[in-house]
């Protein structure tokens, strides 16, 4: 059984199909890359999967359960986590406090007055474990706004880990990251995926990165699934070359 799947998933805006009849499966432990031209519907697909947008028609299943009508937080509780295209951290909070908030959101109880005093320590320990996993523990006390762009994207991976997702949706994690910082972030993702035996759906335009990570590649074009196959087969596809890759620089 696939860990995450869609069946004829469609999202229309004013009658225009933004996501058009997409049927796709993410297998257990698989790294599935999603590529396609700007405006192809990749982020919109993520919005439907994570519940940020309601599907016009079609279904989404997580481990066999129909989650089509569930809210984003209900999907997150079931183990579906995502990052966003644009960097989204609390700049004025410390790196640790950013993750601490995410841990608290996961375990709940932040409003309980009569909590054990050690509960706070547990949250910090969990937050620090997430930071250690992504290699940011040495920056725990820095304000998030003082991080470089690459470090902020890494922090977002730590925020995602705090939610303990079994399935991760990563939306262009390399966007705007300096070439020098890309290999480090790739290793963080590789480590996080392997450590948790997680399944991943990742949108990325950085072809070297996606080819190095993905088991299969899904190609979207005009909202529809153009191809879904091994990276070698997809890269050799003439339609994919015309729609997405174009002429080399």
């Amino acid at each position, binding site marked *: 059984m696939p860990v995450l799947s869609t069946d004829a998933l469609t999202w229309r805006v004013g009658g225009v199909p933004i996501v058009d009849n997409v049927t796709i499966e993410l297998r257990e432990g698989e790294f599935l890359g999603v590529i396609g*031209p700007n405006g192809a519907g990749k982020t919109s697909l993520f919005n439907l999967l994570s519940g940020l947008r309601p599907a016009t028609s079609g279904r989404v299943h997580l481990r066999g359960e129909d989650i089509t009508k569930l809210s984003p937080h209900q999907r997150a509780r079931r183990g579906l986590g995502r990052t966003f295209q644009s960097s989204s951290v609390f700049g004025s909070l410390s790196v640790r406090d950013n993750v601490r908030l995410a841990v608290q959101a996961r375990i709940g109880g932040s409003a309980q007055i009569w909590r054990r005093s050690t509960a706070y320590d547990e949250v910090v320990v969990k937050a620090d474990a997430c930071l250690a996993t992504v290699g940011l523990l040495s920056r725990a006390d820095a304000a998030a706004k003082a991080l470089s762009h690459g470090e902020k994207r890494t922090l977002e991976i730590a925020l995602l880990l705090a939610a303990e997702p079994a399935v991760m949706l990563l939306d262009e994690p390399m966007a705007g990251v300096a070439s020098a910082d890309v290999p480090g972030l790739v290793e963080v993702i590789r480590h996080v995926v392997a450590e948790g035996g997680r399944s991943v759906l990742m949108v990325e*335009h950085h072809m070297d990165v996606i080819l190095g990570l993905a088991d299969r590649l899904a190609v979207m074009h005009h909202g529809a699934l153009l191809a879904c196959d091994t990276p070698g087969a997809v890269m050799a596809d003439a339609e994919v070359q015309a729609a997405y890759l174009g002429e080399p620089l």
Partner: protein
Amino acid sequence: MILDVAGLGVRLSGLDILHGVSFSVPPSGVTALVGRNGAGKTTTLRALMGLSPYSGSASFDGSVLSGRPDQRVLAGIGYVPEDRCVFAGLTVLENLRLAERGRPDHDLVYGLFPELRDRGEQKAGSLSGGQQQMLSLARVLQNTNRLLLVDEPTKGLAPRVVTSVAAVLERVAASVPILLVEQNLAVVRRLASSALVLSGGRVAWTGGADDLLDDADLTKSLLGVGH
């Protein structure tokens, strides 16, 4: 030189971002401004546009660069900011009209970006990332510029669109000098004749773009790539 920058310093929220940055931009071709994240590239462009307070000085075509951002635009400096910054709730045409000054050359931008002519009444927020980048460039290119400051124009774009944007910048650079912040070194190699590397808010290296990109030790030590 079209632009001479001397001792540019920027301090934001108590942190020194730029420490006495000095460099020059020749009157033709593309000068690449490269460096790791946080090196101060975007801050440099923002300071030159008067969008960040700064110390030091800059002269533009022989005159001291000063005044509000709009005055610098009127002096002939076109600025294409990072992340496109289009007005999402306005149409493509409205975005273009807001940025017009003097006698805009619509034929030029529609020649460069034919898609924009077809999408004039479409809200900019509903454009794809590549189309928004085209609009962001078109807003500036419709006017007469004597220098362009362009910040990461290929960020987040599909490979085919990266090639298109690079081709447009190559055409534009034939008539207007460009100071280009860019992470994609393949784009730098195609477009830039000279390069400037920032590191930790300081100038770490200046010279020919090919001299930088052809030297594996140099790119490794300055940009952390290669080998």
